[in-house]
């Protein structure tokens, strides 16, 4: 019995390691580029509900530090405790460490790195589509783009987008929309 529990726990940690390593490896285009990858992993393994995932992005986005690492810590902690948080964050960062050092070495040896920027030229539009798709998906899952949505939700979303265009920091946008939520839906 004990051996079984241990095995299941090990499997979970192993899953976290593999998933967050892949997320780190393919997260081209900065922190937000990893959100679609994280969303897919969470969905595939059924680690948490859609709403909870959105809440995690909210918390990860209102703390300092990269949104992907913050989500990794939260998701790792939620699924497998402190060990899970360390494994998820560490495996998420490992590809960055390896690839940055590899690039430094390649450039120091005057290797031809032009191919990388050619490839990234094709990757970035795809990442744009991925983030857009993740936003729409998460909107549907949170009953935002559906018939049951109420108009204050659209109001808050438009308000948030306007503030972001005005270069207000996301932390303030999240805080203000939380206050709006309390004002609209009650204490």
């Amino acid at each position, binding site marked *: 019995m004990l051996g079984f529990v241990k095995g299941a726990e090990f499997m979970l940690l192993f899953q976290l390691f593999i998933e967050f390593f*892949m997320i*780190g490896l393919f997260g081209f*285009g*900065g*922190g937000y*580029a990893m*959100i679609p990858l994280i969303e*897919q992993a969470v969905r595939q393994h059924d680690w948490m509900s859609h*709403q909870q995932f*959105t*809440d995690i*992005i*909210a*918390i990860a*986005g209102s*703390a*300092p*530090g*990269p949104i992907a*690492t913050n989500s990794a*810590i*939260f998701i790792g902690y939620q699924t497998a405790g402190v060990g899970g*948080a360390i494994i998820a*964050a560490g495996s998420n*960062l490992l*590809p960055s*460490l390896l*690839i*940055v*050092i590899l*690039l430094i070495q390649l450039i120091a040896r005057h290797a031809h790195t032009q*191919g*990388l*920027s*050619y490839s990234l030229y*094709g990757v*970035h*539009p*795809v990442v*744009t*589509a*991925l983030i*857009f798709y993740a*936003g729409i998906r998460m909107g549907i899952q*949170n009953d*935002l783009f559906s018939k049951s949505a109420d108009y204050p*939700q659209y109001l*808050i979303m438009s308000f*948030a*987008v306007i503030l972001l265009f005005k270069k207000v920091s*996301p932390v303030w*946008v*999240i805080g203000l*929309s*939380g206050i709006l*939520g309390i004002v*609209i*839906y*009650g*204490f």
Partner: protein
Amino acid sequence: MLLQAKRADLFDNYLSVLFDLFLTFMKISPLTFGGGIAIIPHIESEIVSKKKWFSKEDVPEVIAIAQSAPGSIAINSAIYIGYMVRGLGGALAAMAGMLVPSALIIFGLTYLFLTYQDLSFIQNAFKGIRPAIIGLILFASFKIGKSAVNDRFTLFLFIIAAVLLFCFHLSPVFLIIGGAITGWFYHAWVRKGS
């Protein structure tokens, strides 16, 4: 004997530089909400002006590599600078410095959230926050798109990727690899043509 003392001295020096890197990035870390390109001005003031580890001319190189590698730009910059200053140990020290403050804060927030998420006013606050997060993510795609989708080829790629996602729910990793191969071949072909 003398050599040994010198070696110990060098090691002390090595450790003190690592510690210095750790502290410097720990100071920058809480300033970088979102972890993105916002870190660059802080790098300039701390690393270039105060510590003089880098010259101003090196900063674009830092940005270029931090953006080319996968992962957050802030972490990648820390890895790059740490590695240039003191090798692998330096990279790890700088990265740890970036991570410690935000990890502590996120642990605190996670604890608070898991403890108080059932309170009605917290639930209502999150009812308000969720649409804002959708707005935040759509805005992020717009912001990345503004520099990524800038000609007919990239617009074509964006549309193809969006259609494949919305109609066939293809895996993100598969699409990213597809985009990389297409981008590479397109450039190779255009260069050959010109």
